[in-house]
């Protein structure tokens, strides 16, 4: 297991007294993390639909309120959340979030931006070559495919943008949301996939297989490859291969630069000052993804701050579910009896005030206990595999978050 690579001290180095009780995961102290000036980059990852963007935005706002100069990079925020961050137009540049901080509130600052992957890609190309060559690349139909539809471009560009934002030194904390991928691991893998795609070896093979590769290679797969190239061009059409080939040639001179930048950003993810926050909901799928991701971070020696368990339903009263259900049944039975009476003999037979309400409330509580128990069981599988990962849970809100006040409330829940 990945956790065996983690030093055992991780469990005992906690400063919070309530975290060392056996069998209980450590508490993730996000306020401490945000207040620590050494934290320069915070990456929020997790599978789709778990609330990564909201978590990223809430953490950024909270850090700004604590006096840090923060920029949050969101990838694909829901429309109303984007509006609340002042991200009505997509211009690929950070903008100050209006109304985030009261005037004169100190040194804090909050800016937000939404990733425009096409524009980020264009800027990268322009930055690495002459205007003429850049134009030739932009005009290639294949570039348009790669820069907008290739699965992995979004992750690559998110990393590139993260690299750019940290390089400016304008902010002392960069919070990044990660793309809504199928799997949380895509964020780490996709840039590599795109790189190997663009390095041109395969395209040269397909367009001129006879000339590419060494002797041994030709001997083994040469003739097969010819056949394959022919088959592929039958399917894709000759024009597509020609475009792709022209693109790769034009791109060749840029490639080294791109690769170097991608490597640098990848290193940034391992550097001191970077922290990963894995976000999950208390559902088996989301926690399974979180588990994979935690193992992967450990393999890559990337620093994991902990797990945010979003939208939990903790119980607010200690009354047991069984007792609540039993009491509800008592009340309901009494009520049914009364309804069945042909006449009322006196005021003592009227329903006690609040009986119907109390029965409903008790049923509700019993449901809630059951839900909370299931959530604990699901989380239990994660904590047994990763006992040293600190966790904070964020109780569900009744409505979706789409304004700054909502983000503040999530921030409070994250920090509690």
């Amino acid at each position, binding site marked *: 297991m990945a956790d065996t690579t983690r030093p055992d001290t991780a469990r005992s180095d906690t400063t919070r007294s309530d975290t060392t009780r056996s069998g209980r995961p450590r508490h993730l102290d996000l306020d401490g993390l945000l207040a620590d000036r050494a934290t320069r980059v915070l990456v929020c990852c997790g599978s789709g639909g778990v609330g990564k963007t909201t978590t990223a935005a809430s953490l950024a706002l909270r850090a700004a309120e604590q006096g840090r100069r923060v920029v949050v990079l969101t990838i694909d925020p829901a429309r109303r959340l984007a509006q609340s961050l002042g991200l009505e137009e997509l211009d690929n540049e950070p903008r100050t979030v209006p109304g985030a901080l009261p005037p004169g509130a100190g040194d804090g600052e909050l800016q937000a931006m939404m990733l425009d992957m096409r524009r980020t890609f264009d800027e990268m190309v322009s930055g690495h070559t002459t205007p003429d060559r850049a134009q030739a690349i932009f005009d290639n139909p294949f570039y348009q495919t790669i820069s907008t539809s290739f699965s992995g471009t979004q992750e690559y560009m998110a990393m590139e943008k993260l690299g750019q934002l940290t390089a400016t030194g304008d902010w002392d904390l960069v919070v990044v949301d990660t793309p809504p991928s199928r799997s949380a691991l895509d964020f780490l893998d996709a840039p590599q996939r795109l790189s190997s795609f663009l390095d041109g070896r395969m395209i040269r093979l397909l367009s001129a297989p006879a000339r590419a590769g060494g002797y041994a290679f030709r001997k083994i797969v040469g003739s097969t490859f010819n056949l394959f190239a022919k088959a592929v061009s039958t399917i894709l059409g000759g024009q597509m291969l020609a475009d792709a080939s022209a693109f790769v040639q034009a791109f060749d001179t840029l490639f080294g630069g791109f690769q170097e930048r991608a490597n640098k950003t990848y290193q940034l993810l391992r550097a001191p000052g970077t922290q990963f926050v894995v976000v999950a909901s208390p559902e088996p799928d989301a926690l399974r993804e979180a588990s994979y991701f935690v193992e992967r971070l450990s393999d890559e020696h990337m620093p994991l701050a902990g797990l945010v368990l979003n939208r939990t339903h903790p119980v607010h009263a200690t009354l047991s579910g069984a007792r609540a259900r039993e009491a509800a049944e008592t009340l309901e039975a009494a009520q049914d009896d009364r309804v069945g009476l042909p006449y009322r003999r006196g005021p003592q037979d009227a329903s006690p005030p609040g009986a*119907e309400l109390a029965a409903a409330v008790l049923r509700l509580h019993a449901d809630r206990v059951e839900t909370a128990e299931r959530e604990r069981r699901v989380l239990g599988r994660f904590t047994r595999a990763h006992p040293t990962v600190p966790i904070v849970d964020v109780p569900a809100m009744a409505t979706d978050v789409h304004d700054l006040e909502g983000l503040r409330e999530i921030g409070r829940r994250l920090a509690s």
Partner: protein
Amino acid sequence: MTDQHWPAALAEARLHVVSGKGGTGKTTLAAALALALAAGGRRTLLVEVEGRQGIAQVFDTPPLPYAEQRIAVAPDGGEVRGLSVDAEAALLEYLEMFYNLGLAGRTLRRMGAIEFATTLAPGLRDVLLTGKVKECVGRTVGEDRRGGRRVPLYDAVVLDAPPTGRVVKFLDVTKAMGSLARTGPIHSQSEGVVELLHSSRTAVHLVTQLEDLPVQETLDTVAEIREAGLPMGAILVNRVRPSRLPATALTGAATGAGLGAGLRSGLEAAGLFLKDEEVDGLVSETVEHAERVQVEAAVRSGLDAAGLPQLELPELTEGVDLGGIYELAELLREQGVR
């Protein structure tokens, strides 16, 4: 009554495409639908296309290979088979049909050549995946040469499709074909796929929950699906929780106003004498519930405006295990799914 949940037209559909916002239970309900449609001794196929092995997880089986295999039996003798389609394997399968690659196919795959070809044209991947689905829908069995009637192998095929953000692009094969050669084997196959997906033999169902964002996304997707000329099926409203509160208490409860006193005397009538903080805890749980019920009512009316058949599935508080899938399938049957 059942007709309004699952109109006759849906009972005629052979291909049921299930999509939904991430996290709403798309795979779970696709599985329950495949099981519900298998009732009465029928045979259905549940297909996934994103390589996540969600079907194997739901049915608690080992990871599915690229081959159809039985994953569940319906209570009265029907059968559900599962298939995890992989674009690269599908491409190899095509190539094998037209070119004799032999063992070399595997070598190409190891080299990454197959993956390269499927990423070269993003549309190719979708064309291959939908092509395989179409092949499953159209496959027949029977005694051909002796003049016996050939019948479809599967009574229905349920596709666990990509989530709402990507589903229309995925199903819009015509557009994807634009990036491919105008002739050739895959092209002609794709024309058949377009025909199937735009016919009444197909129905696209969307899974949602009674929350702001999922409902908004569902409505946006309904518009997109209609614009693309794809046949909309039903909306599957998942994780509906019972409204426990009496209607009279609901509005007051949302603010928490005056809940405490009546509640306490009711609790005492049931023999529960609780501390103040316990009662406060119950009140705050109730307020949360009431707020949620109000949100649900609001989004429900938005959903109703779409004018589509709706099916409701309850929240299974114990979580969804294999037994839960059977329970959900039963509930789908009760609402007319056939």
